[in-house]
């Protein structure tokens, strides 16, 4: 079982945190800090497995991590998961993100953390691996995103407003106002 999935950058700033076991808020932040501390001091040529820090459960749990450019992807698992298998899973997850975001980079994760959560939800559910087929995952996420979009999305611009403005009869705005020597060019306004 996967106990937690943490993504943070090279300075320890969290980009996504998902715990599959209850921890109090401040405990969660402490675990993030402890995990960052453990993982960041590892050389690049050592193996990708670590004993879990004491806060997250100690030696009963393992931290399996991968370092991609500026981000660490850390999965904290118990002994029922195959270490090499989880390494592959991280790879699948990252490749899926890549497909969904077109050459994913840290900024994508920063500004679309909710979308990343939704993608993760299709890969891991309740701490267990749900789906590993990248194309399946991407397809399902796409369909759900489309449903959201048709409703106006998270920005919740009401659908009525969209059509309302389209239907509105705006008075004709002169493109150029010429008064004597003054020449004012009016910028064109987009509906939103």
């Amino acid at each position, binding site marked *: 079982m996967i106990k937690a999935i943490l993504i943070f950058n090279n300075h320890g700033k*969290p980009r*996504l*945190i*998902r715990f*599959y076991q*209850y921890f109090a*808020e*401040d405990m*969660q*932040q402490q675990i993030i800090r402890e995990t960052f501390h453990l993982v960041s001091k590892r*050389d690049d*040529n*050592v*193996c*990708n*497995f670590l*004993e879990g820090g004491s806060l997250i459960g100690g030696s*009963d749990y393992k931290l399996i991590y991968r370092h991609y450019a500026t981000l660490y992807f850390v999965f904290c698992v118990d*002994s029922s998961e*195959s*270490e*090499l*298998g989880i*390494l*592959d899973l991280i790879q699948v997850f990252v490749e899926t993100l890549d497909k969904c975001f077109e050459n994913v980079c840290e900024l994508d994760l*920063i*500004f679309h*953390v*909710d979308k990343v959560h*939704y993608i993760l*939800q299709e890969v891991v*559910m*309740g*701490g*267990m*691996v*749900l*789906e*590993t*087929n990248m*194309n399946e995952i991407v397809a*399902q996420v796409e*369909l*759900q995103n489309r*449903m*959201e979009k048709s*409703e*106006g*999305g*998270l*920005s*919740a611009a*009401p659908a009525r*407003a969209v059509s*309302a*403005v389209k239907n*509105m009869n*705006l008075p004709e*705005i002169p493109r150029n106002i010429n008064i004597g020597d003054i020449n004012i060019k009016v910028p064109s*306004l987009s509906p939103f």
Partner: protein
Amino acid sequence: MAQLHVVEDGNEREKYSSFFLVSLRLRMPTPIRLRELIRTIRTARTQAEEREMIQKECASIRSSFREEDNTYRCRNVAKLLYMHMLGYPAHFGQLECLKLIASQKFTDKRIGYLGAMLLLDERQDVHLLMTNCIKNDLNHNTQYVQGLALCTLGCMGSSEMCRDLAGEVEKLLKISNSYLRKKAALCAVHVIRKVPELMEMFLPATKNLLSEKNHGVLHTSVVLLTEMCERSPDMLSHFRKLVPQLVRILKNLIMSGYSPEHDVSGISDPFLQVRILKLLRMLGRSDDDSSEAMNDILAQVATNTETSKNVGNAILYETVLTIMDIKSESGLRVLAINILGRFLLNNDKNIRYVALTSLLKTVQTDHNAVQRHRSTIVDCLKDVDVSIKRRAMELSFALVNGNNIRGMMKELLYFLDSCDPEFKADCASGIFLGAEKYAPSKRWHIDTIMRVLTTAGSYVRDDSVPNLIQLITNSMEMHAYTVQRLYKALLDDISQQPLVQVASWCIGEYGDLLVSGRCEEEEPIQVTEDEVLDVLEGLLVSNLSSPVTQGYVLTAIMKLSTRVSTVNRIKKVVSVYGSNIDVELQQRAVEYNALFKKYDHMRSALLERMPIMEKTATNGPTETAQTNGEVEPSALDLKNLPSVPQAPGQANNLLDLLGGSDAAPVIQTAAPTKPVSAGGELLDLLGDLSLSGGPAPTLFNDIAAGIPPMTAYNKNGLIIEFTFERSNLNPNIAVITIHASNSTEAEMTEFVFQAAVPKTFQLQLLSPSSNIIPALNQGTITQVIKVLNPQKQQLRMRVKLTYTHNGSPVQDLTEVNSFPPQSWQ
């Protein structure tokens, strides 16, 4: 921010209009978008600035919530979740998540459920309000809404919720929609974990799970089956009939050739393969028929899997674990260990790591096969990676035996020299244990100990000091050599307390040998009595010496009064310490002073050379060990020399244990040279031993070729196995290692194993690896018993076990009779 609206005919129909329209009405500003918030926060340059921004936004969100604004609720909750990730409190959004879940819009539900999973858990009463929503959503006509509900229930559903909704989940487990079916399977796993009684309910639905074509469903179905088998032995036997089907699926995966949709680096769905192998492992574990059915496919996977990429290795690794765990034929086992051996030579560190981990698990059962890879393992000690070094160290200790002791110890001592401090304690303990078991000669043993003390002296465990002293005492012919070497070591370095303590004790005992310059083993050094006393006095006044060490030194000086001629100097030192601020030192000095004055006639008798101590049984450090091995009998307690059985109360307790008069009492001494100055709480054989020792490497489980292990005890989830070895040096000694494991769900603490044997035998118990047995077979305690059987009689043993389980103490007495004949003949 002002917002412009048009009021039409008194109707409150709000429209967004362009900049040029007339009437203005001020209103609450629109909550900013998530993107805006993130952008803003990123501009903060200090933590304080960030906090300020967040507080401002929280206030705005709070008022927005108060207004019951449906439109922007989802946006606000999204922002709240973001701030929660950064570590700021977000509990006021919990109820809002529930409102979102109840909304009709998919967007709302999506963020609402996510919020519920991140912010809520069963500890908050609020979560129960979700139950109805989830129930409705489980029956929604949009599969993605159903999926959301399943996901949430499967992540954080409480037992009440699971009970209420298990029926819905079960329904969804049987439908044909694969998207929902796979989610329902994992949700069912969660339900079973929360409410194990409901497991039966899902049994019918599992009937045709494995005939699914969709890999996602197959995968989660195997997870579900695995969970059910783990929880109930009945289920396990029931599902054994699935083995042929699982084997077939696995075969198809391997043989099917290229399948683009499931391909990962050229291997067809490796995740599913690994899952199936895990389930097969569980099903074949103690069952011959199932194991038989799997042999072929396992061999096939082992030989055919492409190993150039990580995915192939993941499958191989799982295959090896399965082969080792089921009742496979020996050819297959050798194949598996050889695969592990190949892994050890792989360039990829991850592969080496998992190989070492697996070898660690198999070293007990397939010892000889693992021995073949010993040199590679020892090489791993030099690896840069800390995790690999640790495993290599543990494995090396497991592989030490009488034949390779010299070579292995050389490598391990070298490792001790250069390793990180976190390893030193365990390494030192391991070396001591190994040396004790297999030392080829006394001199080698003492040399090894000296080496450990000088390289890692400050890291050795507390009980090693008395153990070493006892060892030295018993090697009579080495006394002069030992004291000489220790003296020389002291001249170099007085900072490592265990070394100083052992050295000063020896100088006290054998100072006469030192001064007389009689040493056969090496070049004797010339040292005068005054020089020796200089060194000892130097130790007394040094800041580096701990109070305990000072106690040792003072007594050593005192002992020298009967061995050397500079008695006046000694008298002076002792009298000075009679007014020392440390109470312990003061008491000693005063008593020794008394010895000089009033009881001078007793002095030489009292300070005589220590006799050889029969180390008949040790049961680990007791409370006394926490004073770091107080070895010296205080003057008045000298009568209680350890060669005599301890207080009569204890002998009675022993007979209690043994029940009959035909058994010999086991003489327990804590660390054999210590009658404690605090008289009473000595070696309470049956009382509460607080074992202060940390875990010593547990892996001294050498199985000499041929003596089969036996299960000595199997009751209430506690299983104790005996493994045997015959000593090379003395054919009358059998070395038994006990492995205690615990298959219940609660750990067993304060575990104490006691044994008694018939009169013609002698028994010696070494320290156990720990006194806590973790639950669910996650670890074992090991302890070594040496049995001396000069008359070659049939071995019998009475065993008493005490431990605490689920808060209540448990005690049991049993007799072990069915020892394999090779262990005593």
